[in-house]
């Protein structure tokens, strides 16, 4: 009696797992353009396109973009196996220089990180991401001068009324020291001045939630998170924080999204990076996900942060 009960229980458990797995598989099929099963059958008949496996890790900010691109790539090259993991820029850079993965994604230049042999890595700037100072919608400020932005983040200006806004204490929302978003904002938004202490969070979603709920809060977010009215992006020195101004080089706070390979890429890694740079992805997927296509940039930057007109 007891045994039958146990057996039924285990059977139920397996049935549930099976059902869940089936559901997961189903949604995956419908999300990719060509059905998975169909393309798999094709691949059995003839070896078309690229095959092999590719391991990618790194920046969690880039993970959704790269994973979506990999999904599209796989639907065109059914024999290719691409694994995209997040884990942070540092992890990506470390793993690609160790050779653990084929491509390491990073939102900072390899030169800016300690302990990475940057000369051994090849940089592929696949996308650009703009970042804006973001405030609680009721701060009463639309535009901020860069000098004032620095004073706000270094704690010299403590109340929004000093900038013509509401009588409301300013609350800073920072990122962790090692974060690429923070590095970019400090470098191009604050001209390397060290921000004062404030609430520190890593995830952009959490930062957005904090800013939207805390009166007087200011932080910084990538453009892709500015999709609704819960937070408000400030223009800097009268320049609106949008894609056009980043592309023309008028808006200063932006960063490349790098895909690093160890040495020159070959085989599947090269195919995939070419695919990332193709108009298909640059014009389509990147815009959809709130990135700025690297191919559309009118200016370029080197690891030291020097900005020049693109030739």
């Amino acid at each position, binding site marked *: 009696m007891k045994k039958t009960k146990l057996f039924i229980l285990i059977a139920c458990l397996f049935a549930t797992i099976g059902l869940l797995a089936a559901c997961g598989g189903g949604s995956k099929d419908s999300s990719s353009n060509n059905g998975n099963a169909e393309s798999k059958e094709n691949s059995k008949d003839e070896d078309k396109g690229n095959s092999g496996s590719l391991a990618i890790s790194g920046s969690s900010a880039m993970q959704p973009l790269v994973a979506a691109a990999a999904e599209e790539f796989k639907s065109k090259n059914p024999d290719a196996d691409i694994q995209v993991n997040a884990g942070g820029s540092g992890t990506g850079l470390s793993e690609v220089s160790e050779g653990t993965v084929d491509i390491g994604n990073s939102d900072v230049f390899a030169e800016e990180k300690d302990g*990475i042999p940057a000369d051994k890595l090849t940089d592929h700037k696949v996308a650009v991401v703009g970042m804006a100072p973001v405030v609680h919608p009721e701060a009463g400020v639309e535009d901020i001068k860069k000098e004032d932005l620095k004073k706000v983040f270094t704690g010299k200006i403590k109340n929004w009324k000093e900038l013509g806004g509401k009588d409301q204490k300013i609350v800073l929302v920072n990122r962790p*020291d*090692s974060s*690429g978003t923070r*590095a970019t904002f400090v470098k191009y938004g604050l001209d390397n001045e060290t921000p004062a*202490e404030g609430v520190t969070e890593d995830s952009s979603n959490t930062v957005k939630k904090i800013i939207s709920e805390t009166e007087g809060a200011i932080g910084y977010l990538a453009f892709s998170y500015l999709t609704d009215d819960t937070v408000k992006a400030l223009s800097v020195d009268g320049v609106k924080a949008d894609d056009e101004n980043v592309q023309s080089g008028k808006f200063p706070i932006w960063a490349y999204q790098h895909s690093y390979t160890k040495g020159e890429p070959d085989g599947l890694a090269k195919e995939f990076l070419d695919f990332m740079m193709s108009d298909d992805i640059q014009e389509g997927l990147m815009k959809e996900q709130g990135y700025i296509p690297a191919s559309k940039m009118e200016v370029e930057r080197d690891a030291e942060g020097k900005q020049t007109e693109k030739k």
Partner: protein
Amino acid sequence: MQAAETTARTRLLRKSKKWNSEFRGKLIVMSAALVIILSTLSITIFLTVKGIQSFITGDVGIIEFLTSTNWNPTAENPQFGAFSFIFGSLAVTLLSAIIAGPLGIAGAIFMIEIAPSWGRRALQPVIELLVGIPSVVYGFIALTVVVPFIRNTVGGTGYSLLAGVIVLSVMILPTITSIATDAIRSQPEDLRDGAYALGATRWQMIRKVILPAAKPALFTAIILGMARAFGEALAVQMVIGNVRNLPSGILDPSATLTSIITLNMGHTTYGSAENNTLWSMGLVLLAISFIFILIIRYLSTRRNA
């Protein structure tokens, strides 16, 4: 007697099938034990090797690491003082034990002594449910409820030591309650009868007889709860604010060792000075956890004596 035993023994051993299964069972449990021991040992050794790296390479001195409050890993001259985080970890742990300890023990007394039938039926599922809630859910609820509540009632940003303490108190409550329940239940019935026979009221019996007798086990319950609070990362990280300054009050934001490790681990590169100091923080966590375990061992040997 002796003869009967040996014949039974030989009879059992004679059947090679029986002996086989005996041996197989022994092998299975022995290898399981070996896996547990080896994994613990290798984690400890790995963490120690990684953790002392930053002291060996001279990025930071061990004294500076443990006592300085200057944490500036990305500055021109990086500083790696982790005292604020060690302090933050210990502060949230102790404060949440102060809140959850009495609550958990009182709940246990209620369940065993006051209302053994329906109290147990009501409280037991609640406690089991509390254990089952994932820590990220605790963190998210705290971020949505506790932080705004603190912000609106006492002021400040709401991201504070207090918010972390509240989350942790709820999280360690089930640990403390269930161990305290076992401790109180295991007190012999004779103690209760004796107390009643001497004319003690129920409350006198609980306070003067049961609680003192169960004291070492109750402390073990609290310390196990503290060990859990000390190692918790996610929920605390979401509400504590994660600043590098030493908090001057319970409403100031703070940071713990675990929250700094989870925030920075992915961004740093292997072998860099900052990455090494994060490993050192992991080593500090392990060392303090060992101290907790030693205290528990000490308490339980005292109980047996």
